[in-house]
Each structure stands twice: as structure tokens, then as C-alpha cells.
């Protein structure tokens, strides 16, 4: 067994265990952290496949941005775990039967010679000067520019939808309008009243301390 195969199996084992813990962990924060572990090990496997750019993007985008946001949300929401677990055991048996049957059927097709090493031989290794990122960039901005632009439009829709669904101006909320705040002049806040100068009464002479 070569070193690479050993690394592959180690990563795969961690990935499967982490993925299992994502759905079995009681605490949602733990589940999210296991998902981070799953992403990082998946990135490791991609690295073995020589897909360096994708591996780094997975860590940067999913672990760095998506999961951090996800953790924020999980921590801010008050999730009632007992309600989530309600009916878990009732659904487990039928769902388990369906899952096992589906898994068996899929394995019957996919395991074996259809997608094995003979049917899908490994590509020849690339020269050292080959840059994964550069090649992907070339493809995205030439051949795939149309789908790329549509993906950008989808992100725009996500922004519009998120704002449309969450931005609301209630009449009874008290909020600060920065524009109005900036426009305030001194005269709006501060009134200078001119008064005749008051002559302070001379202080009473200190009484002599009692001996």
C-alpha cells in the first residue's frame, strides 16, 4: 500500500465518521463543528486528486465563511432540541428500511467494475509547471462564461430575496437615522441664553473654630 493510499483511507475514515457525527450529535454546535471537520478532510481528499484550487476554495469558502455564519445562526437561535427529536424513533424504522434498500440498489450498480479502476483509469500525471488554478480560470472566463454569469445573477437574486424577506420597517421600532443625525446643527441641541452677570455674594467670614 503506497503512502497516498494510506492517506486516502485515513481521510476517508475521518470523513465518514465526522459526517455520521453531524447527524447524530445532540448539540447543534457540535454538529456544525463536525461538519467543519468533514469539509477539511474532504478538502484533503481533493488535494490527493490534484484538485488543489478546489481544495483550498472548499476550506476558504465553506469552512471560513459559510460555517462561521452557520455557527453564528445556531448560537443565536434558541433551538428546542426535544421538539426536534420528537418522532425520531417513529420515523427511524421506515426511513431506515428505505435507506438500506436504496443503498443496496445503488451499491449493486456502482460497486464493482462499472466505476472501478479499470473502467475509469487515472489520468496521466501533469507536469510540474501545470497550474490547476490557471486552467480553471481560463475555462471559467472563456468556455463557461455564460453559466458563470448566470451564477452571478443567482447571487443577485439571493441578495434581493434576502432583503425583501427580512427588511421591515415597523412603525413602533425606535431607530436612529444617521442622515438626520449628521445634519444636526449646534443650534438644534444647544440654546445659549444670555443672562446678566451675577455678582456672587461675599462668602460669610469663616467662623472661628471653637477652641
Amino acid at each position, binding site marked *: 500500500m503506497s503512502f497516498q493510499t494510506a492517506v486516502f483511507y485515513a481521510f476517508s475514515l475521518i470523513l465518514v465518521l465526522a459526517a455520521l457525527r453531524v447527524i447524530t450529535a445532540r448539540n447543534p454546535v457540535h454538529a456544525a463543528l463536525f461538519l467543519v471537520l468533514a469539509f477539511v478532510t474532504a478538502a484533503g481528499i481533493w488535494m490527493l486528486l490534484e484538485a488543489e484550487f478546489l481544495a483550498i476554495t472548499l476550506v476558504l469558502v465553506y469552512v471560513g465563511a459559510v460555517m462561521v455564519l452557520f455557527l453564528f445562526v445556531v448560537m443565536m437561535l434558541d433551538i428546542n432540541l426535544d421538539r426536534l427529536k420528537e418522532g425520531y424513533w417513529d420515523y427511524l424504522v421506515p426511513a431506515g428500511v428505505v435507506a438500506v434498500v436504496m443503498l443496496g440498489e445503488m451499491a449493486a450498480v456502482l460497486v464493482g467494475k462499472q466505476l472501478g479502476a479499470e473502467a475509469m483509469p487515472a489520468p496521466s500525471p501533469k507536469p510540474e509547471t501545470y497550474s490547476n488554478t490557471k486552467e480553471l480560470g481560463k475555462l471559467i472566463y472563456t468556455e463557461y462564461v455564460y*453559466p458563470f454569469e448566470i451564477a452571478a445573477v443567482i447571487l443577485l437574486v439571493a441578495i434581493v430575496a434576502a432583503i425583501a424577506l427580512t427588511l421591515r420597517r415597523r412603525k413602533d421600532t425606535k431607530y436612529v437615522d444617521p442622515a438626520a443625525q449628521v445634519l444636526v446643527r449646534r443650534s438644534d441641541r444647544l440654546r445659549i441664553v444670555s443672562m446678566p452677570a451675577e455678582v456672587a455674594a461675599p462668602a460669610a467670614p469663616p467662623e472661628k473654630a471653637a477652641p
Partner: protein
Amino acid sequence: MTLTSADFLPVWPEILLLAMVCVILVADLFLKDSQRGGTYAMTLLTLAACALVTAASARPDVTFAFHGMFVDDPMSDTLKIMVYLAVGAMLIYSRSYVALRGMYRGEFFTLVLFATLGMMVMISANHFLTLYLGLELLSLSLYALVALQRDSAASTEAAMKYFVLGALASGMLLYGVSMVYGATGSLHIPEVASRIAAGKANMTILLFGLVFVVAGLGFKLGAVPFHMWVPDVYHGAPTAVTLLISTAPKLAAFAFVIRILVEALGNKALFVEWQPMLMMLAVASMALGNLTAIAQTNLKRMLAYSTISHMGFLLLGILSGTINGYSAAMFYVAVYALMGLGTFGMIMALSREGFEADQLDDFKGLNRRSPWHAFVMLLLMFSMAGVPPTVGFYAKLSVLQAVVDAGQLWLAVVAVAFSLIGAFYYLRIVRLMYFDEPVDTHPIQSDGVARLLLSVNGLAALVVGIVPGWLMALCQRAMQASL
């Protein structure tokens, strides 16, 4: 590897629409609530301009652009113009409805236009990636539109169900597509077809992928047994959005199915595999849709089940596997969009502030309240049921003809039997309108343009039924030139 102006010319309608959405998005910020009519007018003008550009640039041959990602053929031009018409009519019908429900905001219009763009991308896609991205663009806009009425618990629930099941369906579809890629080594539709034809594809993997692709398509069309989301979403969404979901996206879904099943996986070896799958979906949809619709008391829910049965009919046309069958299916989906527009438009015309008019009882005695509205609804219901001489009859007839020509006589018999059962609940509405006492006695308040369009829509169901030849010829020409 460079893009030339020849790449941009066929995509001109999409570029125009996207540019105009951005303009509307920004311009709307500067409009006060009382000036929202400006956004409405700009949206309609954009659709009209896109229709003009599409019609002007329509060519009788097939053009590819953007490295084969995009295809411009007569089928896409025809379907796109139908989509513009359906979306435009939806905006006109729903103007006062959305205004009374606090949804008359800029986002409503931009999301509708984004959904339209998604449909156009789907219709013109020539690559599995583009197909999928167009579908997601459409779906995301629709999820947001369903949830737009934030204070309604029913809308939020409908949006949630739509979103979760839609994501599941996308997952299935993508898994199937990844298998197609594994088997053929390409996602480019003509390339996939040619590799299958040359025998260079792994058929076991391909079949495995095909099952998931058909399941994903079944979800998106709302065919039984993947229909669970349809009634809840139709019922829970604001009627304006239900109208949008039930009309224009069906046209895009038709193109989607044709591109995947016929253009990419239409090889004889695969056709004999997906034909029985579609047969099961079609028969189950017609049976469950028509039987369950009888038990409904809510009109929107009833129409949801009726949609399921109509999708079964649409699949009949596609599974016959001939050009005639595909054109009959295209004719059917166009006619279905016309009828759906009218029926949901009627529900919105009868609604008012705080009243939805979506119960069957709300239609009782409509003839006493407004004979013309009752007559238009009668035409639409006759058309839905397939009573001659309305257009629904001709649509059903042409699909059945294609099925019989394909040698599936028993399917045609089953389809006729379920249509007869289906006629019961459509004609029940006619009975309620003409023979029952009105429950609701408020005067009908709808704006003049919507009322005029509703009359045109109802009469179109009759007139196109009397002279269906031109529309049928249009569909036939489009399919012949494109496949």
C-alpha cells in the same frame, strides 16, 4: 476561444432583460409608494421589448452561442414569446391583488423578472450546467415570491415546503446528471447524444443516472409520486404567485424535459427505458390528480390537483416519442398556460381586500352577480374539462392521437376515462355558478384592464378551440425545426 458578436446576438433578449432588471432594481429605490406604477410600467415594457427582440431575431434554423452553452432554435423562440405573454398577463391580473396585500413593492417585480430570466435560460440551454443554473434561478425567485407575504403563516409554510422539496429534487437531478457525465464524459447536450449514439457510453451507469434524472424532472413537474408539494404550495402562496407558478414555468419545464430526455438521452436504447417510467408517472398523475380534486373545497387546491393531472397528460405527449407527440405536448402546455392564466385571474378578479375568493362556495350564484364573469369562467372550465368546441378539447385530442399513433391504445383509453372523471369537478363549478344562490353579494371590483384581459383570455379559450390550426402548426414547425 474568443467571443464574437455572433455569440451575443442570439442572447440579446436575455441580456436586455438582465440589464433592465438591474435598471428597475435601482430606479425603484427612488420611487415613492404612490409612484409604484412606474415600476409596473417599466416591467411590462421590458417584457414587451424582449418579445420584440425575440420575434425580430427569430430564425428558422438552430444557432449555438457561447461555446455551445446556449441554443437558439424555433422551439425556444416560440416558448419564450409564450413566457413573456404569460408573465405579462400575470402582472396585469395581479396588480390590484398585490396592491391590497402589501406586496406591491419593487422586489415583487424584480423577482418576477428574475424568474422570467431563469425560464429563458432553461428554454435556451444546450448544456446540463446551463439547464441546472436556469432552473435554480427560476426556483430561487419563486421561493422568495411565495414567501413575500411575510405575515401570512400559510405562505411561509408553503415557501418552506417548496424550498425543502425543491432542494431535494435539485439534488436528485444533479446526482443523475453527474452519472450521465460519468457515463458519457460530457455535459454538452449534442455531445452526450452523439457519444451515446456512437456506443461510447457506459449504458449501466447511464441508466442509473436516467432514473435519478426522471425522478428530479417528476418533482419539478409535480407528477405523482413526486407531487406532494404542489397542493400546499398552490394553496398557501398568494394567488398572484400561484398564477405565476402554474403557468409560465410549465412552458420552461416542457423545454427542460425535451432538452434532457429527447435531445440528450433520446437515443432508441434509452427511449425504451424512459418511456415506461413516464408512463407510470402519467397514469398515476392522471388518476390521483383527478380523483383527489373531487374532494377539494378550496378552488386553489382543486386546481393544484388538476395541474397534476394535466402534467400527466403532458407526459403522455412526450412519451409517445414522435415529433407529432412532442408538438402535441407543446400545444397542450401552451393551452394549459392559457387556461391557468384565466382561471387564477378570475379568482383574483373576484377577490378584494381581506377576501380571497378561493373557496368553491365563493363562486355560488356568480351568474346573478355578473353574467359576463360567469360566462368567461364557464368557457375556462369547459376548456379545462375538455368539452368541445373549447381549446382544451383539441389539446387533449391531439395528445391522444399521438399516443394512439405510438401504439399505446390502452393509455389513451385510461386517459379518456380519467378525463371524464375530471370533467365532474370542473362542471361542478359551472353548476355552482348558474344554479345556486349567491353566498357573497359584494359587487365585483376589478380594474378595467384586468377585466378586459380576462374577457380576451376566456374568449381565446373558445376561439383558439374553433380555429386551432395555426397554433398547432406553430408548435409543429417549432418542434420539426428544432429536433
